[in-house]
């Protein structure tokens, strides 16, 4: 029995945290100057195994601090306090193209963090760790209330922060994969915003009638929030990603019902038949499927489908009519949506119309399409089925992991600041945006 091995102390603090909170990983009492591997492991809801690891050398006191010491190799390099989370990837031998998304947000993601002697890259389960701890990562803070919404034929989930309110609110839309994705809305509620995740593609009404929703579906969602006793109706924002951005821009400009205080657009485009509904948008993209590219890895690239940016005003949202502050977030390696080209066109339209002071544009190099909450893993390609197709594709989303993860962290922080600035300000004066983020 080698008792010396059991002297190693590992601490991760806090052991329970929200997904957007950082943690500190400390190793103490390891053999001085030893080569160590710090590894994280997660067994996901869909029974897949994920891991990340960094190679370190501890100091002469046997201590290691992941906030200060660099990883010399592994799934991440350099000084990366959160690398054990954002560089998580499926373990060798897993099926290709997996994606990790938390469905049940009322339970935490459990991650085991362990320390091993030596610089290991595989075979962790055959080795004995020097020490291990379990860490919980939560999408929901204590006291946040999760309320399924079915009024007005909506398929949605409302998350309310704890306390009496009233709260500003965010209407949260995801993209072409459909389903009711709750984790961003619950994180927003954990940050003090009421938030409603809205399913607009695989919602109950569409599933039972076979008909896609019209624009009044989104207006009904807005009205539901506006009339809620714990929500301030004049402080509602909309946040879309991918197809969600398409809908957000449409509603921000053309809806007479939706008076958005501000809007957030991730990885999306203003290109769409402006007089159409969701169905028309999907058909428009379907018609352009011949612009799909397949690369040498058999990965599907959809960014060219709706390029070039049309000149026809019937085919893109008139950005000159935007009346609220707008935050546009673009990954420059987005291989799924022409978000950069669209953003450039949007900016030009707004400059010509004289409302470009409302626009804040954040562009991130080497960052792909799926810009998700911070410290969650990056997916460059995954198996994907959009609601329109019954086929499975290996879709290229883009992005290089380290840069993409930095972008996720920065964009989340700046988006929360943007929302706080425009939704929580105490003044009654007309809102102007600041583009100096």
């Amino acid at each position, binding site marked *: *029995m080698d*008792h010396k091995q*059991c*002297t190693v*102390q590992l601490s991760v*603090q*806090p*052991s*329970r*945290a*929200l997904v957007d*909170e950082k943690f500190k990983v400390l190793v103490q*009492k390891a053999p001085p100057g030893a080569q160590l591997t710090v590894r994280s492991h997660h067994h996901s809801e869909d029974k897949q195994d994920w891991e990340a690891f960094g190679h370190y050398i501890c100091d002469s006191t046997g201590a290691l601090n992941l906030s200060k010491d660099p990883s010399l190799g592994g799934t991440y390099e350099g000084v990366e306090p959160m690398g054990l989370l954002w560089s998580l990837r499926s373990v060798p031998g897993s099926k290709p193209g997996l994606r990790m998304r938390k469905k049940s947000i009322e339970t*935490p993601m*459990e991650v*085991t963090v*362990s320390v091993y002697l030596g610089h290991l890259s595989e075979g962790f389960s055959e080795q*004995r*760790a020097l*020490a*291990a*701890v*379990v*860490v*919980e990562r*939560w999408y929901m*803070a*204590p*006291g946040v209330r999760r309320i399924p919404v079915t009024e007005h034929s909506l398929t949605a989930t409302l998350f309310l*922060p*704890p*306390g*009496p*309110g*009233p*709260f*500003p609110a965010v209407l949260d839309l995801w993209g072409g994969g459909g389903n009711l994705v709750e984790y961003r809305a619950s994180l927003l509620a*954990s940050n*003090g915003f009421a938030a409603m995740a809205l399913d607009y593609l695989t919602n109950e009404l569409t599933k039972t009638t076979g008909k896609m929703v019209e624009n009044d579906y989104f207006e009904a969602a807005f009205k539901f929030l*506006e*009339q*809620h*006793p*714990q*929500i*301030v*109706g*004049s*402080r509602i924002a909309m946040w879309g990603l991918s197809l969600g951005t398409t809908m957000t821009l449409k509603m921000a400009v053309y809806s007479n019902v939706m008076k958005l205080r501000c809007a957030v657009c991730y990885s999306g485009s203003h290109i769409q038949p402006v007089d159409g509904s969701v169905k028309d948008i999907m058909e428009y993209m379907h018609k352009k499927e011949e612009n799909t590219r397949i690369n040498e890895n058999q990965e599907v690239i959809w960014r060219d489908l709706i390029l070039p940016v049309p000149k026809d005003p019937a085919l893109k949202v008139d950005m000159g009519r935007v009346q609220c502050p707008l935050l546009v977030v673009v990954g420059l390696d987005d291989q799924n949506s022409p978000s950069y080209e669209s953003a450039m066109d949007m900016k030009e339209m707004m400059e010509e119309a004289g409302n470009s002071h409302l626009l804040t544009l954040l562009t991130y190099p080497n960052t792909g399409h799926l810009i998700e909450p911070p410290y969650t893993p990056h997916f460059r390609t995954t198996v994907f089925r959009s609601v329109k197709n019954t086929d499975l594709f290996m879709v290229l989303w883009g992005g290089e992991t380290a840069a993409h993860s930095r972008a996720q962290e920065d964009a989340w922080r700046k988006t929360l600041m943007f929302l*706080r600035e425009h*939704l*929580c300000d*105490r003044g*009654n004066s007309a809102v102007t945006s600041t583009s100096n983020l």
Partner: protein
Amino acid sequence: MTSAAMDSIVAPLLSVAPTRALVDEMFTVRVENLPPCQHFTLHSLHLSEDNDYWEAFGHYTSNHKGTVVPQDYTKGGTYTGKEPMGLLWSLRPVPGSRKGLRLRKMNVCSPLLYTISVYSGHLVVGFRAQAPLASALAERWYMAPGVQRISIKEKAVRGTMFFPPGTEWPLPWTLGYYFGPGEMETTEMKSNYFETAFNIVKDHPRVISNKVGIVGLSLGATVAFYLATESKVVKPCCCVCINGHHFNPSGKHLFDLSYDSFKMHVRKLSAYWIDCFEYQESIIIIYLNFWQMGKINCPMLLVCGEDDQNVPAVEVADDIERMVRAAGKDRLLTRLNYPGAGHLIEVPYAPHFRVTAFMQAKEQKVMIVWGGQTKPHSDAQEDSWQKILDYLQLHLYSCPSLASKL
């Protein structure tokens, strides 16, 4: 339109970080988006497992940006000064509660829930009668994720073992004899009960058998004194003894401390047991010998609350030091004294109880004075905990020959 929609001002933003923490971890409470330079009260509310409400509060003034943080200075409330954790350690039963309450979490698998709120103005009462401006919920856990809890019912021993997460191999262990007087049936408590319990731990496959230490509070510390000096069966690796006495009821059961025989000197509603020792020396001579502390062979940490009104902790510690020094073993003894701290030195940020109700063996309820003033007692809990953890780390994880006096 609802009134909320007509009022376009949103609630202030109250955040607690981390929202989920271990009981010995700090948190930060922050309020933003308040009107600037106005009076506010930060309030914490806890509903105990016994269905009693506990609260703490501090009076603040928002700065020119409309922010309040508990690193700010508070001049009123259940705590004063710069006390970021005051909303926890100064918790006390709400007005109108039953007398002599004590807060103890019996189910450690679930967290303690605290509602942290901000109210307008400097309030001292009536918090539940008015709506706060904002609230958040904080969870405080006694168990880290992945810790395994296993009930032990073996050879008449009843206890619970907690295994740290992620480890299947043998580890050093701490055995906690942690109970107050009267919390078990004295007829069961023969000396070999504790030896049996110790051996259950020592012989467990996930325990390193020569690395089992003992932590004891009050009577638990007395058990530790007994085992460390008299037991031929167990050899603790080290002991941490908080506010224990070393009186040996020789010839009787280890805990056959018949309280009647002390002829308690009851002052109003409080029982000062400590007075028994001061004023009833003859009884002490008749009834009690002392464990011969010079016989210890393991390192021992004594934690003494200098305002302990239940056990003469300082006098006991002085006497133990004398005995240990006389035996030439003072290198084994370390002592921590805390002025203003009472008997119940618990984990950090736990509320302080100067007096609580206590059922005697014959169903007679008295109010027992444990002692301590809240602020120094809370400081003692915070300071001693880290020192106890460091002490256990040193003696249970290191080679014994390297163990040195802290």
